[in-house]
């Protein structure tokens, strides 16, 4: 049996990066995710797997280091929290435009501005809808446990290389700071130069006289060429939407009332469902694991059986708009949220649920 280690979500990201053959990590300190780089520096993976770890001068620089490293076909990642990710959004747009694979971990805190260092989910719109300029999508995966943090690093790189697209692991201060037991999988070695040529034949690896040069760029000044590229991206996103939706459900089989919640909120909503079931109310939970692509199909299917749906988020109401689009009027859609680093209790959500559904 694999060893179970007690670790923070942030530490799980770092250990997973080393154990899953990541080539490079570039980051900048910010609460509540600084343990990622601290753990990497303490582990010194450059002495074991050869992984490069570098503290950059800013988040702007970190994300551009990812651009450089990803251009070489390497598995590169960074982590930050909301204000830092805002700085990275320029670079993420370039990475999307140059079709480069990388993994960005965003351990969200409350904003806007410097905001708070406490947990929040208020960057759903920023990350799921884009963040940077231009028509593009991040693939967004939302962990709800330290084990997810560990597992999603490798899954993130799989998706990133499959689609040559940035992947954002959208976590929050709770998932980053909380310790839980994490099961470690067998070590995966870093890819060899030959494997990089095989998996990333587009990469900048030094041009032999015999092949065309490889150019990593997001620039095209010709309107028609740019439009063709945008259409190509659209086709890629359609493939991602068709193939990569992932979600989990809790007690939805006979549920008349459906909660939709991601990340830490989905865990709290499990307790809500338990409480309501104990009262004889048939509640269930849908947890989107991928936020882009969004599980719209499953939400629509559940909407057909539900008396109502409620989106529970640590923000003023962001994902609820995607839920409403998916429900498309089939049932009422409610919302309850907390902000500023405040976390709802299950009792509080139960009360709001009853108010919304006239069950009080």
């Amino acid at each position, binding site marked *: 049996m694999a060893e179970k280690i007690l670790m923070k979500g942030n530490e799980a990201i770092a250990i997973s990066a080393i154990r899953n053959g990541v*080539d490079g990590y570039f980051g900048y300190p910010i609460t509540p995710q600084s343990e990622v780089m601290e753990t990497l520096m303490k582990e010194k993976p450059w002495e074991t797997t050869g992984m490069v770890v570098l503290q950059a*001068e800013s988040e702007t620089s970190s994300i*551009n280091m990812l*651009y450089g490293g990803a251009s*070489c076909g*390497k598995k590169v990642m960074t982590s930050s929290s909301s204000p830092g990710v805002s700085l990275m959004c320029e670079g993420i747009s370039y990475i999307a435009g140059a079709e480069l694979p990388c993994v960005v971990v965003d351990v969200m805190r409350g904003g806007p501005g410097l905001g708070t260092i406490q947990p929040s989910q208020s960057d759903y719109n920023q990350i799921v809808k884009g963040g940077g300029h231009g028509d593009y999508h991040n693939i967004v995966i939302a962990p709800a446990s330290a084990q997810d943090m560990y597992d999603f690093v490798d899954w993130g790189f799989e998706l990133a290389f499959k689609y040559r697209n940035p992947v954002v692991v959208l976590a929050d201060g709770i998932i980053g700071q909380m310790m839980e037991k994490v099961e470690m999988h067998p070590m995966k070695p870093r890819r060899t130069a030959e494997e990089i040529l095989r998996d990333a034949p587009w990469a900048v690896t030094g041009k032999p006289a015999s092949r065309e040069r490889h150019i990593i*760029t997001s*620039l095209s000044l010709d309107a028609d060429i740019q439009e063709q590229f945008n259409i190509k991206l659209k086709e890629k996103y359609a493939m991602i939407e068709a193939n990569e939706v992932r979600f989990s459900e809790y007690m939805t089989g006979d549920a008349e009332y459906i909660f939709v919640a991601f990340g830490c909120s989905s865990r709290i909503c499990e307790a809500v469902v338990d409480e309501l079931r104990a009262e004889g109310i048939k509640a269930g939970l849908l947890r989107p694991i991928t936020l882009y692509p969004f599980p719209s199909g499953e939400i629509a299917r559940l909407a057909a059986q539900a008396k109502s749906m409620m989106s529970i988020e640590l923000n003023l109401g962001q994902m609820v708009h995607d839920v409403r689009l998916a429900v498309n009027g089939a049932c009422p859609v409610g919302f309850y949220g907390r902000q500023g680093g405040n976390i709802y209790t299950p009792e509080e959500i139960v009360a709001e649920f009853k108010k919304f559904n006239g069950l009080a």
Partner: protein
Amino acid sequence: MSISIEEIKKPENIVYRRPALLTDNVMHYCPGCSHGTVHKLVAEVIEEMGIQDRTIGISPVGCSVFAYNYIDIDWEEAAHGRAPALATATKRLCPDKYVFTYQGDGDLASIGTAEIIHACSRGENIVVIFINNGIYGMTGGQMAPTTLIGMKTSTTPYGRDPKLNGFPLVIADMISHLDGTAYITRQSVHTAVAARKAKSAIRKAFEYSAKGIGLSFVEIVSTCNSGWKMTPVEANKWMVENMFAKYPIGDIKDVLK
């Protein structure tokens, strides 16, 4: 006696040829621009060192954004000012490669100051080619950090006034104080002699970058006759008389000397 074309083309008669690593693409640079000459020198150095398959170039945002169209190597095209960040990761992840950035003064000395200073400070084993012509060429001749006092640009139409616009930034001298830099030189390419010296400097920078002794920086004081609104000949003269006073030609730092 007449000689045939074939005879002239014999290898022993060739005194000049275009470097093999310059592509057939027609350059978009204005006639008289220094970029074309510097591209040629970089291509020659890579060819002569035999490192085409081990060299990765990082192009900037600015007139040389399309450098990747002209030199036949693998390229990464960076966001504005970020080339040294790309180069840092590229070199650290591929330490057996020669990695260079090619940046103008808007890219390197304005929006990208943090990136260049920290790449220098960390002693990244990369080459930086810095084209300093005191103006933003691509966007139509606006003031650059390196614009001289009194110099007219589209955003300093009455001349750069230090009270309004501050003073010219002398990057090469600034970074010479950073322990991570190995070789810093300032060159120009306005005469054949100057171009030969610039080429030697570029070659030295590439050679130093393989020694693991820190960052090598070659500034080329250049002309932008379109932006300066001069003929190429006038621009060269103006550069010698004005730019060289603020940006004197010569080596600034060489840790191996």
